[in-house]
């Protein structure tokens, strides 16, 4: 089990569209401790997803610094970022983005192809990841044979199978009903509390944010405020 802290300093991101400058992040400073579960909230265009992409090395900052664990992302090339991502970050998307022609197990196995690993070890890891998300009995099902909640669980298993330091979730419950959302959020809590994963989750939903230990509010690309939850850990609740 691994985890990492995140340090963001004076982070700026500007997009250009038709030669027009669109500032998204305007000198953001933020610290996230290892093992924290943070919800990112804010109105549309406040820079939540952009921040998530920059922390995950999917995009590069215009200025400022992003450190994840020991890694300073602004010093890395595109190829280095790609390789770093495979080892340190797990992504969960709103629309799951599973490969429709592969089974649940094969989808989860995909990121392990980037590691030198025996096939038997890969299979074992896949089984463990799917069991953690409660889909040990759905390994051979294809995405179109699963419900939305189950698909998101497979996506979560795919995100954790490489044992990343950080899990980045972009509105993971945005496409799910209330009951299924609750199940997915409980699963994220489990990963955070039982496995010590640092989780950063973008959400518009205050109920979802309530599952996090800390909620960071962004406004016009800057930190507006931070709120700490008094939510009881799952183990204590049980």
């Amino acid at each position: 089990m691994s985890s990492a802290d995140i340090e963001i300093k004076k982070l700026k991101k500007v997009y250009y569209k038709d030669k027009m400058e669109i500032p998204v992040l305007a000198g953001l400073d933020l610290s996230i401790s290892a093992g924290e579960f943070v919800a990112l909230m804010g109105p549309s265009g406040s820079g939540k997803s952009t921040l998530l992409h920059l922390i995950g090395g999917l995009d590069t900052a215009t200025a400022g610094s992003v450190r994840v664990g020991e890694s300073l992302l602004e010093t890395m090339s595109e190829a280095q970022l790609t390789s770093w991502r495979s080892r340190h970050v797990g992504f969960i998307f709103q629309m799951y983005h599973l490969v429709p022609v592969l089974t649940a197990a094969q989808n989860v196995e995909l990121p392990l192809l980037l590691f030198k690993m025996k096939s038997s070890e890969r299979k074992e890891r896949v089984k463990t990841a799917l069991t953690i998300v409660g889909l040990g009995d759905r390994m051979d099902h294809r995405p179109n044979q699963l419900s939305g909640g189950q698909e998101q669980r497979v996506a979560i298993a795919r995100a954790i199978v490489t044992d990343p330091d950080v899990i980045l979730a972009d509105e993971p419950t945005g496409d799910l009903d209330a009951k299924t959302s609750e199940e997915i959020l409980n699963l994220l809590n489990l990963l955070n509390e039982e496995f010590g994963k640092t989780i950063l989750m973008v959400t518009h939903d205050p109920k979802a944010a309530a599952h996090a230990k800390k909620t960071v509010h962004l406004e016009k690309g800057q930190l507006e405020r931070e709120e700490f939850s008094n939510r009881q850990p799952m183990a204590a609740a049980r």
Partner: protein
Amino acid sequence: MNLRLVYLHRNLTRNVRRSLLTCAAVGLPIMIYVLSMSVVHGVDKFLDNSAKQLRIVVTQKTSIVNPLPEGHRKKIEALDESKQRLTSVCGVQWIGGQRENDPTPLSVMAADADSFVSTMPEYELTQDEIDAWQKDRQAIIIGSGPAGQLGWKIGDRVSIVPTLPPYRAMEFHVISTAPKAPDNQSIFFRKDYLNEELKKDGFPEGQVSFFFVKCATKKDLDEFREKIDAAFAGSLDETRSLDEKTFMNEFIAQQFDLPKNLAILSGLTVFVAIMAAMNTMSMNFRDRIAEMATLKSLGFSGGFAFSLIQTESLLLCSLGGLVGAIVPFVVFTYTPARDFQVPLIQTLVVEWVTCMKALGIAVFIGLVAGVWPSWMAMRMHVVRALRNLE
């Protein structure tokens, strides 16, 4: 099975109808290529056989349409009285023709009866056939092509209406269908019979379209080609002498230039195949933008995305190419279609070398068709793709 292979296989079968149509879009042009090249090779073989016969074709200098006097034969023979170097000379007059009430054109020629057999040994006539040719003034040798097509066989009495004088039906006795002749389309009968028929109707006789001059060696052929033309230089009927391969090549080019036209046709079909395959691969990539972006977010490199699309394109096109190459090979080698006859070529022979070349072209199509979508996949920006801005 290796997950990469499973993924590749599933991608190929993801949209079966599209994959099959792409295979067909590549396979059919490849099939056209294989058949076209087989015809071209057949013509080449025919021409090579002409070259082997060490014959000079002597025509009127200005045009093959203008006849030469029969008397030229004696002057040509006189150039080598020993008959050791110019072994035989055969005058041939093309008169064309067709059956009565049947517009199918026939390539009918009258040849000197005494020298036809020695000048055209590749016909491999049997002794009985040779005897019949020499004894029967109305003897006719029907090429295996028209013989098969018209159902004519040895012993039949047939009637042909020439395109040129005497323009009326002439009766013949079929004495051979020349099954071993490389030229399976030509029909030969005796020139003395033609002269008689022409005389009856008052048409000028004693003319030939060209002479076949059989030489002993290649050296003789080159030497006498010039000597013949020199012998008639300044006369009313100057000659133009060519080796038979060059003559046939010129003749084919004048008629329909089959090899050139087939090569152009093949090139065009391959181009169409590239366009079709490129379109499919672009659609495949467009359908999978989010998937590619996800793979990249998981840590797969741009190179992996490139190889995924490129390999798919290669496999799809190679599969289509394989079918397109194998089908004509099997059909024209192992089924009754092997007897299918093409003008100038006795039978269409699809060689495995042609099939291998066709497969190479299919691989090339796959490579070219996959480059652009593969490049797009490699260069795709993950964030923009996930936001569906690409």
